[in-house]
């Protein structure tokens, strides 16, 4: 049984300039203890999809238009979009059973509280521990994420930690209540490669120890290859391809995914090859193409692509793609 099932999720934003369909009919499932990678360029809706699951969409201007987010726990099913995002039930889930870490650890930690205080807040709130026990637990968590001398670090402020340390503190905070799902939104994008390697290694280790499922959002295909079991590729608010990681990399179907793979320079090739970029730019969110969203940039576009939106359907076993090429 899956942990999270998202069905036909549509999250729109009503702005003065028009409606932005940030997430426009998205289906995906997250299996327990597995990592789902969500890949896409900026503005493709990957973060909004995650915030919708967290119940953190600001209403207004945002609105979850339609769709279901089914959360399975202890044989019960909770439909998250039906809950009041500020209500008691959602609050008992958010940060407790579903936790999130953000891209920029400096802006998402509160600069006027010690990191210990910030970790303890979640523990006291959700696990009803006494302050002293919560502090012990916070130190334990900092130790688990590999922060040296946690007894001392627990009383330090975010600005006293380096970028990698802050991201570790964020992870410690997110995992402190032993969540069943951890949503990681570009957790290593702001970090240097050597620190990124440390954090990714840590997350893989923690996943095994804490039995946590991870929804890993990134634009970096290299990171996805290292982290994810299953991958969904998003473009303009829609999922264009979805399969296991090895299928995505070895049996790429959608022209957008192929384009992404061709545009990254490879460390492995010895000779100098010219990159094959995707032509053009991501369309303006107010002027989304009528047919397939990728049609104006697609090297294999056909007549039908201009007018009809391709459905996401099975093109190989356990491999979905939304493209008329596979009709």
């Amino acid at each position, binding site marked *: 049984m899956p942990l999270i099932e998202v069905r036909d999720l549509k999250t729109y934003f009503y702005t003065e300039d028009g409606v932005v369909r940030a997430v426009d009919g998205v289906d995906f499932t997250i299996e327990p203890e597995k990592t789902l990678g969500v890949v896409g*360029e*900026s503005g493709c809706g990957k973060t909004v999809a995650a915030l919708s699951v967290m119940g953190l969409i600001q209403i207004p201007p945002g609105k979850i238009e339609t769709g279901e987010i089914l959360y399975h726990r202890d044989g019960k099913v909770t439909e998250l979009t039906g809950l009041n995002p500020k209500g008691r039930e959602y609050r008992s889930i958010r940060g407790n059973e579903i936790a999130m870490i953000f891209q920029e650890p400096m802006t998402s930690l509160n600069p006027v509280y010690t990191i210990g205080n910030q970790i303890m807040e979640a523990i006291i709130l959700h696990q009803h521990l006494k302050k002293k026990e919560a502090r012990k637990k916070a130190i334990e968590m900092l130790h688990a994420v590999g922060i040296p001398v946690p007894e001392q670090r627990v009383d330090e402020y975010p600005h006293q930690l*380096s*970028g*990698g*340390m802050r991201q570790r503190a964020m992870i410690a905070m997110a995992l402190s209540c032993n969540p069943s799902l951890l949503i990681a939104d570009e957790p290593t994008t702001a970090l*240097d*490669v*050597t*620190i*990124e*390697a*440390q954090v*990714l*290694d840590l997350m893989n280790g923690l996943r095994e120890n804490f039995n946590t499922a991870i929804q890993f959002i990134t*634009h*970096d*295909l*290299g*990171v*996805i*290859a*290292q982290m*994810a079991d299953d991958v969904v590729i998003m473009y303009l608010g829609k999922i264009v391809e979805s399969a296991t*990681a*090895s299928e995505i*990399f070895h049996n790429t179907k959608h022209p957008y995914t192929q*384009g*992404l*793979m*061709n*545009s*990254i*320079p*490879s*460390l*492995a*090739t*010895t000779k*100098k090859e*010219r*990159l*094959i*970029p*995707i*032509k053009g*730019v*991501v369309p303006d969110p107010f002027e989304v193409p009528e047919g397939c969203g990728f049609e104006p940039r697609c090297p294999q576009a056909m007549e039908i692509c201009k007018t009809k939106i391709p459905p996401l359907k099975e093109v190989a076993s356990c491999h979905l793609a939304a493209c008329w090429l596979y009709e």
Partner: protein
Amino acid sequence: MSSDNILLDVKNLKKYFPVRKGVLRRVVAHVKAVDDIDMYIKEGETLGLVGESGCGKTTTGRTILRLIEPTAGEVRFRSKKLAGQGEEYKEVDVATASRKTLKALRRDMQVIFQDPYSSLNPRMTVGAIVGEPLLVHRVAKGRERENRVRELLAAVGLKPDHMKRYPHEFSGGQRQRIGVARALALDPQLIIADEPVSALDVSIQAQVLNMLEDLQEEFGLTYLFIAHDLSVVKHISDRVAVMYLGKIVELCKTEELFTNPKHPYTEALMSAVPVPDPDYNVERILLEGDVPSPVNPPSGCYFHPRCRYAKDTCKTEAPVYRDLGNEHFVCCHFADSLSLRPVRTG
């Protein structure tokens, strides 16, 4: 090393920033942002400069341009525009050049900045931005200037009617093109590109990289390409310099660096880059800890606290930056004896 086609020769370049404390603002320490580096760039080549944040790559670029005053060292540049009659070039030391010479030198050395959002004045039209260097250096004005701007925009893949628009009307990739057009305006010999693609999405990044390569061929440009992304640097550079804590630890031909690294830091850096292949299962070399503070660098070799091959010598003696032959420079005591892991090929 043949010295006849060296465009830029940097020798013992240092930039120390003072750290001031107390009421009297006394200098208590120095941040050694650039700590005695040597390198040269040959005409028409691309030298990549990689390293983690805070290692001094940007300061190096800016000190070479003398946007920041160097503390010590030489930056010898062969300027074509300053050459007298009958001379092919004139060699100038940028680090000590007078204001007047420096202004003339700016026509030969240009820069592209990382952030395409903050490096363009939002109140100026694209035409005014790209044409400004022409005015400042009195190269062209009026109709002539306008035509030149049109040419430049065409060269970077923008349309002439984009001249009348403002930067906010453009996407990140297009803005970076505007920055490149501005850098090209004075027909420079050297362009220092400081992380020109790191703020862009991958599909756009590839477009800009291809454009930079095309322009290099068309205008015979020389690049100093500063970036933190090893795969980008590998793609675009002829030679690569790896920086750590204000020093160059290794510098050699790109292929040599990736197939035959000689410095343990290079090895670790290459191993840390995520490979886009889920079946790639080689164990990564994880460096422990963070980059030390450049105010108070470790004794001996700066890299020794994180180095897995460190021996006692490394703690006390600083290694010398030396040529192993075939233009392979390295700064490690044991460069000859270590056998390091190259990047996976194939």
